[in-house]
């Protein structure tokens, strides 16, 4: 759904999304990295289980909530992706204290 402009020259970073090795660019937010890798759906809602994906990219809508390194409720658009990061789809409500 998104492509990288050819004049960008950031070095690459690798992370996993639901266990699958994925590449991103240095400085990408988790949400940007997921969109760049073709993932537009990144969570399921707690109420109806509908799929959702990043909407605002500026920390407002909380549609980009994902699990990062085992911690749920992370805002993907406000977190910079780092080498080796473990990102997972958040399925429904993650209750406070739910850790791996």
């Amino acid at each position, binding site marked *: 759904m998104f492509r990288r402009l050819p*004049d960008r020259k950031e070095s690459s970073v690798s992370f996993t999304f639901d266990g699958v090795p994925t590449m991103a*660019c240095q400085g990408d937010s988790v949400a940007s990295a997921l969109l760049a890798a073709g993932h537009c759906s990144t969570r399921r809602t707690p109420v109806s289980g509908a*799929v959702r994906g*990043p*909407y605002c990219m*500026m920390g407002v809508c909380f549609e980009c909530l994902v699990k990062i390194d085992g*911690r749920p409720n992370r805002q993907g658009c406000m977190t910079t992706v780092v080498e080796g990061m473990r990102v997972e789809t958040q399925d429904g409500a993650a209750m406070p*204290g739910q850790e791996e």
Partner: protein
Amino acid sequence: MIKDIQSAANLAPAYDLVVVGAGPAGLSAAIEASTHGLAVLLADENESPGGQIYRSVDRASDADLTRMGPDYAAGRRLIERFRGADLSYARRATVWSVGPADEETGDGAHALEVGISLGGIARPIAADRVILATGALERPFPFPGWTMPGVMAAGAAQILMKSSGLVPSGRTILAGTGPLLYLLASQLLRAGVSVIAVVDTTPVENWRLALPHVLSFATSPYALKGLKLLLEVHRHTRVIRGATAIEAVGSGQFSALRVHRSNKSLHIEGDLLLLHQGIAPNLNLTLAAGCDYVWDERLAAFRPNVDGRGASSVSGVSIAGDAAGIVGAVASAHQGELAGLAAALDLNRIGQSVYEQRRAQHAQKLARALRGRTFIDDRFRPGKTFRVPEDDGTIICRCEEITAGKLREVAALGVPGPNQMKAFTRCGMGPCQGRLCGLTAVELLAQCRGVPPGEVGYYRLRPPIKPVTLSELAALPHTEAATIAVAGFVERAHDGAQDATYGSHR
């Protein structure tokens, strides 16, 4: 040179002035105040200074600057000045509360207290003055299907382009109203994106409203820029006007936009839909700080009450830029300067004559920057049916999945305001704390009750306005009463750190 602060542990216990937000208003306020010798902390939640408008401009390549246009490139100079200023800068910081200093934990010398979390530590910081420059949010744009993946805010596409050099790879449709819609269209077109249609939802009757202000607009810098933009977009893509309703269709993923017009409807297939219908002041921190606010019919939004120098109803707290009412980047910067200057006067760092002289200069520039604004507001005011969806199945509260129909049902029971509506339906109770449903819910309720939105009021907002983790709170040096006030409960000592709490909702 600015001092980069990485952890709340390295913050000073007190500052003369804390500025929240590193967009044009916040940066200018901080620079101005520091020039007059104030000890300034600027706290911002992003990775680098610039706010949404100048996001990543200091890392931008020449190609980026050409694509994004001269108004974006102008941010570079401001950020350079900021980097050279003598002040402290906390990036990736969350400011979750602003209020009068706590009698028990405060130092007695400073009037205000700001709750900041930074680098995993939350801390109250004392301040004499606070300037809130928290900018604007895109107005909610609810219609059937707007929650589907593949439908995003126009601002999101700009952010992706500015920070990561990412542009839509498929057929892209833009829908809505306002200058930013056309700006984004031109930026995407310049980046070679296949923008297959711009669906302009501006109500036709807006022209009549805007006409009395056309002269001051025509002589403003906006006029020529706007005209160029319109021509550029019209030349390279299809612009569809006169839409009375829109609908996103797809199964689990956006695949087409249905555009209803008075006589016929259109079905436009695409891969990505970008929405924009103007911006509204970001109220969360200003309201949580207790600032009075009013309904502004021209903006069709609430804005905090401020005087000519940005002072709010809360003593010591000023608001500058779009957070106080939509004024645009240039005027925001001048408002920031005025607020920073006023802080210097209030804290006796400059005399009355210096103040007056500088104030007059800034005020003159501000007046010039505000020219044409009224025309823009009236011309691009989003239509009522796009602000309050007629279709009962449309989701209003994205977090809790509450539909317009459900809200109308509850409104019919005679609920007086959005807080009671929230109690009945959970609308506005999710993690976004009403940021994406607030305006819609208020206008819908006002419509059902037949009263102006000002009478209905906005959600009661309490700190923390952003999720603060319990482990961060646990590090706060405070009383049990304070913890309960912030977190809604006290965590008894047991195994390990817990996670995101949404404070007063719990």
